[in-house]
């Protein structure tokens, strides 16, 4: 039998990972909920931001915080660029075309990253202290990204609920035409939404580079998990995606200790498939 302390540690690690996954999932889910288009290449934008931090910090010797801010700025710029160049021209077209267009961006980014930077895995390792909490090992390299993720999600919540623009973003997701009658230009709201979603991708990239190594196919590593979380939580449902992030990260983390990380992903996907049949609208969807 496995020592309960390892399970407790796995549970804590699950929470720490869940915070960063929530950041990824909510960024993607915000864009889907408002614009009704799934950015298949979302985690590939995260990959670009990870590379930026790697080069700035590891190669050019920038301080970590400056590299992180640069990644956030790049993320927001990428969000705006993707919307203007790819999404905006195909807004009215068939859903399959929209999937193909953002899917095409995914292959473009993967190939271009391979061409520029080869398939080498690159990482930024920080030597930060760890704490021992009654036998549970708490590395600051995981605690800090978690704390920053939660702060960012609180900021997102306040933005969406307290400001005119944030409330308008929620309103447009419910009735685009009615929001036009309120005097808001829906296209401008879409642009702000894409910038915020991109900004969250940039922040996620700035945090993930300290947890994982980056390579051109990083999107394939976390992309499917991110989509699964969004669908499990209910596409467009922010609270649902937040809860689903922690469910998924706990499954992966605890199964990883009991068996292996691969087994964790297997169980996570099985849970996902079962939930799709049991609760197709997402875990928090209303019955009926």
């Amino acid at each position, binding site marked *: 039998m496995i020592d309960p302390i390892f399970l407790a540690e796995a549970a804590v690690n699950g929470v720490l990972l869940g915070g960063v996954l929530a950041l990824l999932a909510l960024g993607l889910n915000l864009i889907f909920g408002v614009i009704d288009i799934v950015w298949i290449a979302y985690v590939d934008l995260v990959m670009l931001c990870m590379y930026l931090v790697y080069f700035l910090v590891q190669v050019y010797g920038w301080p970590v915080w400056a590299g992180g801010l640069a990644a956030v700025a790049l993320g927001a710029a990428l969000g705006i660029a993707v919307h203007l160049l790819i999404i905006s021209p195909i807004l009215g077209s068939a859903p399959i075309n929209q999937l193909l267009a953002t899917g095409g961006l995914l292959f473009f980014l993967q190939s271009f990253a391979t061409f520029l930077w080869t398939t080498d895995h690159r990482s930024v390792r920080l030597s930060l202290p760890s704490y021992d909490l009654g036998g549970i090992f708490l590395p600051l390299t995981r605690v800090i990204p978690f704390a920053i993720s939660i702060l960012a999600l609180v900021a997102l919540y306040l933005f969406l609920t307290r400001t005119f623009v944030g409330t*308008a973003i*929620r*309103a447009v997701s419910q009735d685009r035409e009615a929001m036009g009658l309120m*005097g*808001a230009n829906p296209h401008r709201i879409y642009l702000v939404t894409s910038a915020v979603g991109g900004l969250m991708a940039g922040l996620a990239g700035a945090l993930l580079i300290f947890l994982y190594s980056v390579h051109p196919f990083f999107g394939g590593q976390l992309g499917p998990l991110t989509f699964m979380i969004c669908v499990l939580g209910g596409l467009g449902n922010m609270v649902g995606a937040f809860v689903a992030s922690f469910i998924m990260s706990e499954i992966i983390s605890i199964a990883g200790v009991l068996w292996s990380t691969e087994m964790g992903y297997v169980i996570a996907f099985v849970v996902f498939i079962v939930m799709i049949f049991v609760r197709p609208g997402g875990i928090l969807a209303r019955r009926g």
Partner: protein
Amino acid sequence: MSLLELTGVTTGYGHFTALWDVGLRVERGEAVAVVGPNGAGKTTLLRVISGVLPVRAGTLTFDGAALAGRPAHEVVAHGIAHVPEGRRLFPTLTVADNLKMGAYLGRARKHYAETLARVYALFPVLAERRTQRAGSLSGGEQQMLAIGRALMSRPRLILLDEPSMGLAPVMVLRLFDLIRRVREEGYTILVVEQNVRQVLKLVDRAYLLEVGRIKMEGRAAELNDQDFVRKAYVGL
């Protein structure tokens, strides 16, 4: 010069023409009704005025500004607020957030607190329910919220699309009383209604719309009530 003036307005959906050569005017401070049978193009008329539907031919001026071809969010900025068919509230947003969205425009945002107090004074039930989701309100309350939301933009003209639709008869009477109060506050109103008898008591003038064309126009008091009602309902 009239506040709102349409001349020769034609519009439609795809190959279908819904409005033919429509001429209509609304003076400052006036309440005007457009009545007519189902499918006559009443909703289409309001949608073309607020810029949701493009004008295919003709001119549309508001306070001297040519509005034909302007998108909806620019028309609102000129001072036209549209209370659409079916209310079109943001159902999961609270009552207060729905009203806040009505004041989205920069001009309205500056006077947000002041306008909100006026709307709450006009519709006290909205103040009571301010933290409730819009979707949880009764039909009559939802219609009040839709009108309140339109007032939040501090409009000079309010377009009302079938305000009595789906309401119980008692609620219809209360709602018309409330619209009368909105009128007395000095707002100019263009209302589209099925409930001809009630609406003729509310307005100064009325137009009869049939299969996309204006068939009759007159002062509400002078209109042959019976004949007008019959035409509006049956289209004969």
